[in-house]
């Protein structure tokens, strides 16, 4: 008999129509269907969701936190991408 542990799943919940799925935590389940059933009991006991995504944790490819500085530096140095960079003449109220 297999004593293999159930794999780990990351759970994402859409709290209501119009909002995106958001990571809420993880859980163990034998397969994807069971992960969704378990997520219903673990993460939505108080009407927290209308839709569940389960993604096996090993399938998540993540950026490396030690390289975060260099990874995100290109956007930090481009202040002109923000509207506040620009002068709007007095007399123009909405732009």
């Amino acid at each position, binding site marked *: 008999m297999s004593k293999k*542990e159930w794999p780990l799943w990351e759970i994402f919940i859409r709290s209501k129509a119009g909002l995106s799925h958001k990571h809420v935590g993880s859980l*163990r389940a034998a397969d994807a269907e069971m992960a969704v059933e378990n997520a219903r009991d*673990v993460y939505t006991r108080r009407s927290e969701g209308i839709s569940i995504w389960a993604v096996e944790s090993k399938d998540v490819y993540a950026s490396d936190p030690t390289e975060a500085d260099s990874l995100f530096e290109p956007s930090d140095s481009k202040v002109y991408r923000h509207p506040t960079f620009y002068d709007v003449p007095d007399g123009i109220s909405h732009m």
Partner: protein
Amino acid sequence: MKDINISELERKFQEKIDKDIKIEPKDWMPDDYRQTLIRQISQHAHSEIVGMLPEGNWITRAPNLRRKAVLLAKVQDEAGHGLYLYSSVETLGANREETIDDLHSGKAKYSSIFNYPTVSWADMGAIGWLVDGAAIMNQVPLCRCSYGPYARAMVRVCKEESFHQRQGFEIMVQLAKGTPVQKEMAQDALNRFWWPSLMMFGPNDAESKHTAQSVKWKIKRHTNDELRQMFVDATVPQAELIGLTIPDKDLKFNEETGHYESGAINWDEFWEVVKGNGPCNKDRVDTRRKAKEDGMWVVEAANAYAAKRAIRKSA
């Protein structure tokens, strides 16, 4: 060379903590920080799981359907809290099953309060009111803990705990205004659970070996004695309101400080229970161990079913 790197990493780590930047699973962290969290979060998870047992004892004997539905929901929440916490422990690289096996072998601790028996229905009231009340005092500051996954789990737990305390207090209110026998049941439950509830906050600050470092790392935001004082200050007026007496003849209100002063806690009893000699320690751990052993076929059957389903899908 390596030592210099480590001390530089530690300096940067503490700088993040001081700036209230959360630590996330893949971030560098000192090994002691990781080990402290693994110990604390797994103990917390075990407490939630073992905490189901004293209340589970009364589900089939709840006095009416409303109380039974509420108690079931509460015990189910405790299971959920245990699961949020085990998944937090896993983000630190600990193995969930090994963590659970440490509970079953007696290596890992859980809150000593759950080693006391629940001998009457009023104990369901006292546990919700006092034990969950004390847990809330402990857990609210943990929502701001420096470790992200633990803090997020605590936000969920705290949202759910406040119903737990209210349902317990409601039981006490009803009993306290019931027949003399019912009121006596409520008082008796308060008498038995008051001191163990105060012990839930852990040893006095002077005796607490982990507090200073945990405060520096912002794992803990308050010391044991500070939290205990907050609990006493909040709870004594609630007891007075419903006409119950706190079983502490030395308890008095200090007008100057605005705080209640409690009598001495029997720390010998606390350490005996922590060491495994409480009234129910053996029973609690045996029950958990048996649950895992008896449930292994479910784990295996689910694996077999998942394998079968996978073959059917690929066909």
